[in-house]
């Protein structure tokens, strides 16, 4: 074998190894979720196949007793409202900053910029007091307000796009008598579609997966989102790995489906989203 062929083989070997490292833990959980209580209890080993590959009993238990229906409902509500809010707020901010010259414009920009440097986790102790004093603690509005209020990344993404919309479009509309709100609503917002798609994807996945904020701000059982509801499995099902696994698969599955369906957009979205 030539040196080049050896190098090529090593490259493939490393990729296969990485694939195994990623897929093995997930695959084992999928197998476990299909096992019966006896099978997990008698220690037959994690890598053995379940007797019945179509045993969905654990999924029923996890879905019903784990309150997953409420959890998906709460998550969907918070997701829709806060992602919608983020799109509106981000695009309005970007429009105002890019298309107007006004006093304190530089200061406003600086305020948004500096906020991007402050990691949300560090201020949570004090944020908690504010959320509490606004009467939003233990309601679905606490996470919604926090998700909408701190998203600098989406403002940045919108700004990039607003900038690329030719200003002559605004001018033409202005000559036709359109005011700033009409221009925003009829010209800017519709042209922001690619940016909106990006923000919806990045923000949507972040909200769907977030644990910290709902965990701190919505302790009530019936306000559980999928993260916190799944986290609660730890108590009652402590030794029932087949149920916990089913719960985990239930939470991962929607992500997998969305990922497979929108792969291209998701890659693009994350490349834009993480480059603040």
């Amino acid at each position: 074998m030539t040196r080049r062929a050896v190098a090529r083989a090593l490259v493939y070997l490393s990729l296969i190894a990485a694939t195994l490292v990623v897929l093995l833990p997930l695959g084992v959980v999928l197998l476990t979720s299909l096992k019966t209580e006896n099978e997990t209890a008698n220690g037959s080993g994690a890598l053995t196949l379940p007797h019945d590959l179509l045993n969905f009993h654990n999924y029923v238990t996890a879905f019903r007793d784990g309150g997953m229906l409420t959890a998906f409902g709460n998550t969907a509500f918070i997701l829709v409202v806060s992602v919608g809010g983020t799109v509106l707020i981000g695009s309005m901010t970007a429009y105002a900053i890019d298309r107007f010259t006004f006093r304190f414009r530089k200061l406003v920009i600086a305020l948004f910029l500096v906020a991007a440097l402050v990691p949300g986790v560090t201020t949570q102790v004090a944020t908690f007091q504010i959320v509490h004093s606004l009467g939003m603690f233990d309601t679905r509005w606490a996470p919604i307000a926090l998700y909408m209020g701190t998203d600098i990344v989406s403002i940045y993404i919108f700004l990039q796009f607003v900038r690329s919309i030719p200003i002559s479009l605004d001018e033409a509309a202005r000559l036709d008598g359109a005011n700033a709100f009409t221009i925003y609503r009829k010209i800017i917002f519709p042209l922001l579609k690619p940016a909106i798609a990006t923000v919806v994807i990045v923000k949507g996945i972040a909200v769907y997966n977030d644990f910290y904020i709902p965990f701190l701000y919505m302790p009530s059982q019936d306000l559980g989102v999928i993260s916190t509801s799944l986290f609660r499995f730890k108590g009652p099902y402590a030794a029932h790995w087949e149920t916990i696994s089913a719960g985990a698969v239930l939470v991962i599955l929607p992500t997998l489906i969305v990922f497979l369906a929108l792969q291209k957009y998701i890659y693009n979205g994350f490349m834009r989203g993480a480059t603040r």
Partner: protein
Amino acid sequence: MAHAHTHTPAHRTEQTNSEAVKPVSKRVAPAPAPRRARTWRLLTPWLFLLAPLALLITFTYAPIANMVAYSFTDWDGVSPELHYTGAENYTEIFTREDLFQVFWVSGYYLVASVIQIVAALYFATILSFSIRFRNFFKGVLFFPSLVNGVAIGFVFLYFFQDGGTFDTVLGLFGYHTDHAWLGTPASANVSLAGVSIWRYLGMNFVLFLGAIQSIPGELYEAAELDGAGRWHQFRYIILPGIKPVLTLTVILSVSGSLSAFEIPYIMTGGATGTETFVIQTVKLAFQFNKTGLASAAAVVLLLIILLVTWVQRRLVPDDRVDLV
């Protein structure tokens, strides 16, 4: 960064923007506008900024200000009583060994992020060249970064169990053990840091991949004609080409390592020496009602992260930061 190269056109539009605005306002209002119309025009941008600024101040700046104020008090977060204690909380953080030891735990995550960046760079480089099943490998490597943190925590709790998957796999390679991977501080922290590599590698990988793909292809062709091998192409084309993303990743990794929370909290709850800075702060504030002390801890973390950011900006000046 993926759009580092879009910078020049952006500047151009900015210029045409300011040039174009003036004649327009002249055209729209040739005669001195009535006072009401003028006030209206001055107000317009602020109407758009009303909600965003209100949220920004309420949920970012007010908390920071309050947090600094709390950090000098002994407030418990509930009672109306609150005493000014000076720098006492800060002295406590830096002198009480049990409070300070969380910083050593960050070390595990820092080492993990170095491994993660190197691995992500390696995979991004090899997958940017033509390779069979490229999209499959891309998807597999990236997918974990989309998965719910609690689910990941449970997946790996099961994985690291006594006689669990990890032990079984090691058994296949002839290394038979029945080890409690989360049972001693060192092995628990190594395991948790490993999980965080598993979780975040794909994100860095995709960022690097995007940056590498934005390097013009002719550069490789030219290099190949000059007889440069893969290593030289990496060293002299890819590495300089993705420098902005690389530095951004480094700083995000440092602040991420310092503020590690989800994985250790979900998997061990901070037991067996795996307590991180954020877990400790959350416990101080919400379990032991030591809001003052917790605020001081948060201020320390914030200062460290801002310091790291500042140092990085000084070392690698990056013009991309300007928002407009």
